[in-house]
């Protein structure tokens, strides 16, 4: 019987082809929006977590409750770690290497114009690791042992002085000459602090400023599984040194990863929520089409009842019709979603590349779960939207329905 109902529903949909197609298009657009945004969100999450996962053995210790230290800005709280803190950390077992980020400021001069800039000093090896994900506009990273060389951010190179600075350019900082080894690409919103960075080796920093203001500590552990416990030990030790419970925050990449995943997850949910509005509108469209269909087919319903159709038969015919319409719409929506997500990625990718000053490799990811979910959602939307019209059809009196003109 189910097969007969499907056949009957299919014939009815074909009979009202243009109306069915328009209704189906509503569902297709809704599903396309959801698929595109889910694929984009999934792709973004993969890019971000991929970058962070490669740093899973790293612990970042920063002052205050700031989980993400201000890269390049340094010392945002105005408090710094001491050599005693470093010595205490180095005593903890299971740590492979410890390096520090020094922060301060200096007077920079280029082409006759002087300005105060933020200076960041760090071990060259750590520098390469920490800034590996950032695009370089020109030049390269510092090499171990090089002196009086710096890397600068996009706005230092292009916006701070009267003339653009290029690789090999010479800048005076506190009267000392430095050569530009590399220029970072524009970071835009997320990494705006990196745009005004002046990065040098720890040795040059100390030589230049005579200070060792440690704003952050980077360390790597031998065993990734110990990272969390070591982070707790470090945090307790440093807080004890400074006599405050909230002086330092030691964060593992795993916890940063979890936080980022939570944020991207929420973002994805919000995007899907917005896209779902299209689906709600589409489901109202299905209900409207089905109600019109019930009205038009009043006589037909009466005939079917007169020749022995039960309430269940009538309901089933109309629900199958709605489900059929929305699931075909769902399948078309998935296909459109594949192209939609590619288009959205291209637009977003080019936008972000412009901002980042380099290539931004975002690939939309459509998982089997997303596809199954989309089909299930469209099917459920179809069934729910046709429940009321089907019920209305089923409770019609056969006498009234047969008489209906």
């Amino acid at each position: 019987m189910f097969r007969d109902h499907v056949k009957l529903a299919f014939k009815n949909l074909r009979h009202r082809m243009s109306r069915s197609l328009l209704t189906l298009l509503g569902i297709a657009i809704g599903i396309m929006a959801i698929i595109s945004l889910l694929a984009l969100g999934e792709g973004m999450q993969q890019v971000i977590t991929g970058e962070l996962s490669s740093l899973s053995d790293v612990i970042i210790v920063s002052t205050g409750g700031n989980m993400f230290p201000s890269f390049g800005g340094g010392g945002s709280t105005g408090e710094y770690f001491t050599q005693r803190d470093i010595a205490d950390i180095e005593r903890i077992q299971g740590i492979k290497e410890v390096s520090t980020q020094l922060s301060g400021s200096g007077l920079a001069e280029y082409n006759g114009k002087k300005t105060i800039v933020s200076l960041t000093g760090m071990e060259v090896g750590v520098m390469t690791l920490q800034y590996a994900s950032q695009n370089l506009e020109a030049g390269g990273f510092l090499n171990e042992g090089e002196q009086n060389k710096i890397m600068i951010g996009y706005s230092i190179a292009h916006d701070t002085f009267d003339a653009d600075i290029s690789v090999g350019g010479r800048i005076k900082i506190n009267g000392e000459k430095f050569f530009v080894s590399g220029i970072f690409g524009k970071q835009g919103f997320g990494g705006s602090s990196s745009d005004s960075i002046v990065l040098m080796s720890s040795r040059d920093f100390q030589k230049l400023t005579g200070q060792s203001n440690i704003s952050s500590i980077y360390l790597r552990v031998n065993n990734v599984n110990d990272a969390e416990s070591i982070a707790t030990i470090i945090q307790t030790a440093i807080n004890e040194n400074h006599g405050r419970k909230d002086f330092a925050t030691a964060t593992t990449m795993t916890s940063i990863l979890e936080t980022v995943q939570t944020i991207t997850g929420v973002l994805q949910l919000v995007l899907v929520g917005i896209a779902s509005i299209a689906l709600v509108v589409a489901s109202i469209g299905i209900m409207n089409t089905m109600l019109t269909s019930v009205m038009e087919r009043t006589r037909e319903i009466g005939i079917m009842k007169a020749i022995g159709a039960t309430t269940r038969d009538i309901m089933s015919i109309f629900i199958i019709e709605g489900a059929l319409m929305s699931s075909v719409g769902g399948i078309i929506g998935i296909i459109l979603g594949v192209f939609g997500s590619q288009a959205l990625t291209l637009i977003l990718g080019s936008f972000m590349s412009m901002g980042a000053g380099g290539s931004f490799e975002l690939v939309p990811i459509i998982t089997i779960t997303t596809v199954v979910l989309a089909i299930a959602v469209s099917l459920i939307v179809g069934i729910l939207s046709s429940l009321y019209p089907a019920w209305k059809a089923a409770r019609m009196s056969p006498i009234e329905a047969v008489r209906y003109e």
Partner: protein
Amino acid sequence: MSKDVIVTENISKTYGNPPLQVFALRDTNLRIKQGDYIAIIGPSGSGKSTLMNLLGCLDKPTTGNIFIDGSDVSTLNENELARIRREKIGFIFQKYNLIPTLNAQENVELSMGFAGVDSQTRTIKAKQLLELVELSKRLTHKPSELSGGEQQRVAIARALANNPSIILADEPTGNVDTKSGENIMQILENVNKKGETIIIVTHNMAIAQRAKRVLQIHDGVVQEGHV
């Protein structure tokens, strides 16, 4: 002696409440036997359609009982009435009432589908019935591609699909030309000769004269009549 297929005991049908109550049918007692060929006649508004709807289980009496093949159908719910209509009764309407999206064969198969008959049996039976009404060359034609007389013959084939014991025909020749009307009546009479009970509602005295028994209705009162 033939058995009773329909028995009505003091059935009445009223609409509205006193003092504005309207009696569509009053205390009607009928005994209809297997193989009967009955014409129901009467002026418009006399209660013919009400009686037809009650006998066809499309409606329930306000008072009284209706027995079809011995079982009381007056107290059955909608789905149980649907089962009775499916198994015991075949309807033929004045306006044919075929499903416009289905072809002739599918229209005949539809009621068998509701009765749970398997697809293969349905197809064979539908073809046989359409051959009986001389429409074997019109199996795949939709109602819009058939003449009035042909549509009514499809409706007869559909009415016979589930081997009902009663055929209820409401003005079966009302919308067709004389020749087609004669053709339809002959088919129904042949069906009756095979033992089927035929009840026809008609205004046409010539049609009524062909019946073995005539029921006349005036103001909701049913009487055995003569034409």
